[in-house]
C-alpha cells in the first residue's frame, strides 16, 4: 500500500512543474489563438473569433512566402546536414590517433551558443573585412564581389551553412558511433570477395546505417523547424522576407506587431507541420524495424 502511493509521490513534483510550465501555456496559447488580440490596442484578450485566425493565415501572402522560405531552408539544411554528417562519419571513424583527437573536439561546436555563431558569421561574411568573404573570393574569384547577406539567394545559402555548422558535429557523432560499432567481419568479407569501396558503401554500410539516418533526419528536421537564434543574429529574416522562416515570422507577428491571436494560431500551424513530419518519419522507422 505504501509502495503504491510512493511511486506517484515521486512523480508529483515533475508533473506539477511540467503542468505549470508546459501544458498550461500550451492550452492557454490555443485559447488565445481562437481570439482576436492586438496587444497594442487592448491589454485584455479580444472577442472570440473561432478558427478565423487560422483561416486568415491561408489568405495571407506573407504566410505563403514564409512557408516557401521554411521549405527551402528546412529541405536544404536537412539534406546538407545528413549527407555531410555521413561523410564526416566515414572520414573520422577510423582508428587513427589524429582522428581520435578530432573526434574528441568535434563536440565543441555543439556547446557554443548559436546566437554567437550567427553574429560571428555575420562578421566573417562582411564584404569589407570578413575572413570567409576574403577566403571565398581568393579561391573562387567569380564570387569575390558577392555581398552574401544582401541578396536573397546567397543570404539563404549563408543561413543554411550556419545552421549546418551548428547541427553537423552532433549528428556526425551519431554516425561515428554507429560506424565504429559495426562488425568488422562483414567489411573484411566484402574485401575478400573483391568488392570496391563504392560497392561496400552502397551495398553494406548505407543499408546498415539506415535506422540512424532516419533518426538523424527526424532530429535535424525538428531542430531546423525550430531554428531561431541564427536567424535573428545573422539575417533578421532578410533581405526582404527571403529568410523569414515560419518560426521567425511567428516571433515577428507576436512580439514586433503584437498580434497575439494570429501569432498563436501560426504557432499551432507550425506545431501541426512538425507533428506531421515526425509521424511520417516515425512510421517509416517502425516499418523498417518490422522488416528486420
Amino acid at each position, binding site marked *: 500500500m505504501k509502495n503504491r502511493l510512493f511511486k*506517484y509521490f515521486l512523480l508529483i513534483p515533475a508533473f506539477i512543474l511540467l503542468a505549470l510550465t508546459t*501544458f498550461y*501555456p500550451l492550452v492557454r496559447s490555443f485559447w488565445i489563438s481562437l481570439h482576436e488580440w492586438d496587444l497594442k490596442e487592448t491589454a485584455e484578450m479580444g472577442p472570440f473569433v473561432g478558427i478565423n485566425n487560422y483561416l486568415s493565415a491561408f489568405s495571407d501572402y506573407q504566410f505563403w512566402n514564409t512557408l516557401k522560405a521554411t521549405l527551402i531552408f528546412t529541405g536544404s539544411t536537412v539534406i546538407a546536414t545528413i549527407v555531410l554528417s555521413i561523410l564526416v562519419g566515414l572520414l573520422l571513424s577510423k582508428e587513427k590517433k589524429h582522428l581520435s583527437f578530432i573526434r574528441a*573536439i568535434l563536440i565543441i561546436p555543439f556547446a557554443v551558443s548559436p546566437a*554567437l555563431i550567427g553574429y560571428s558569421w555575420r*562578421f566573417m561574411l562582411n564584404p569589407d573585412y570578413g575572413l570567409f568573404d576574403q577566403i571565398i573570393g581568393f579561391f573562387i574569384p567569380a564570387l569575390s564581389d558577392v555581398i552574401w547577406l544582401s541578396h536573397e539567394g546567397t543570404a539563404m545559402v549563408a543561413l543554411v551553412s550556419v545552421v549546418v555548422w551548428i547541427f553537423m558535429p552532433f549528428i556526425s557523432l551519431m554516425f561515428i558511433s554507429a560506424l565504429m560499432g559495426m562488425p568488422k567481419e562483414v567489411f573484411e568479407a566484402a574485401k575478400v570477395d573483391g568488392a570496391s569501396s563504392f560497392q561496400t558503401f552502397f551495398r553494406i554500410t548505407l543499408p546498415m546505417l539506415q535506422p540512424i539516418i532516419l533518426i538523424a533526419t527526424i532530429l535535424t528536421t525538428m531542430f531546423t523547424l525550430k531554428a531561431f537564434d541564427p536567424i535573428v543574429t545573422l539575417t533578421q529574416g532578410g533581405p526582404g522576407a527571403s529568410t523569414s522562416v515560419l518560426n521567425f515570422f511567428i516571433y515577428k507577428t507576436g512580439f514586433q506587431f503584437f498580434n497575439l491571436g494570429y501569432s498563436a494560431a501560426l504557432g499551432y500551424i507550425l506545431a501541426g507541420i512538425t507533428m506531421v513530419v515526425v509521424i511520417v518519419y516515425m512510421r517509416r522507422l517502425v516499418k523498417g524495424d518490422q522488416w528486420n
Partner: protein
Amino acid sequence: MNSQVNLEKQPKKAENRISIRKIFPSILENISVLLIVLFLFVPLFWIFLTSFKPYEEVFTTSIFFQPTLENYLAVFSSSFDLGKYYSNSTIVVVVTLIITLVVSVLASYSLSRFEIPGKQVIMFGILATQFIPLIINVIPYFVMFRNLGLLDTTLGLIIVNLGHTIPYAIWLIKGFMDRIPIAIEEQASIDGASRLRIIWSILLPLAKPGIITASVFCFVIIWNEFMFALILTNREAVTLPVALQFFIGEEGVIWNHMAAAGTLFVLPTVVFMLLVRKQFVQGMTSGSIK
C-alpha cells in the same frame, strides 16, 4: 647489362603504381578532414583571435598584431557591464539545473522501476512537448508575466527554462536507470534500507553517468537559451546570449568587444563539455538510438 637494369626497374614501377593508388585517396581523405576541421573551427578561432585585437586591426584579416587585453577590460566596465549579465546567466542556470535534477531523478526512478498505468503515453507526452515549437509557450508567458510583474526577472526565465529541461532530463536519466539491474536494490531493501535511502546511496552513484550527461546537456541548453530571454527580458535580467546585441551600435558593431564577451560566454560550456565528453557522447548516442 641492360636487361638487368630493366629487371630491377620493373618491380619498382609496379610498386610505385600501387603506392600512388594507395596514397592518392589517402591524400584526398586528409584534405577532406582538414577542410572539415577548418569549416568547424575557423569561426571559433576567429572570435578568439579578434578578442585580442586592438580596434584598428579588427577591420583587417591580419593574424599578426600586437595582442591586447583591453577588450576584456572594456566589456567589464560600467558601459557594458558583462559582470551583471554573467551573474544573471549563472543564477538562471544554477537554479534551473538544481530543480530540474531533483524532480527528474525522482520521476525517472518512479518511471523506471514501477508499473505505472499509461507509462508509454506519459513518456511520449513528455517528449512530445519538445516537438512543439517553444514560441507557442512564450505568447501566454509574456501575457502572464506582464500581469504578475515577472517580465525582465531571472525568476521568470527560470520558470520557462524548467519546462524545457525537465523533459530532456527525465528521458536521459530514465534511459540510464533502466540499465541498472534491479537486483541490487532488492538486496538493499531486504537489508531494511528505506526507498529514498536506496535512491540516494545506491542508485544515484550507479546512475552518475546518466545524471552527468543530463546535467551537461541541460546546462548547455539553458546557458545558450536565446528566444525566451530575448522576448521576456529587456534590461535587468538580460542573459549573455541576448546581451551580445548591445555591441551593435549606431555606428556599427564593436566586433572586438563582442568577441571578448563571446569568448568568456562560451568558455564554461566548452570546458564542461570537454570534461565529460566521453560520457556525454555515449549517453546521447545510446539514448537516441535505443
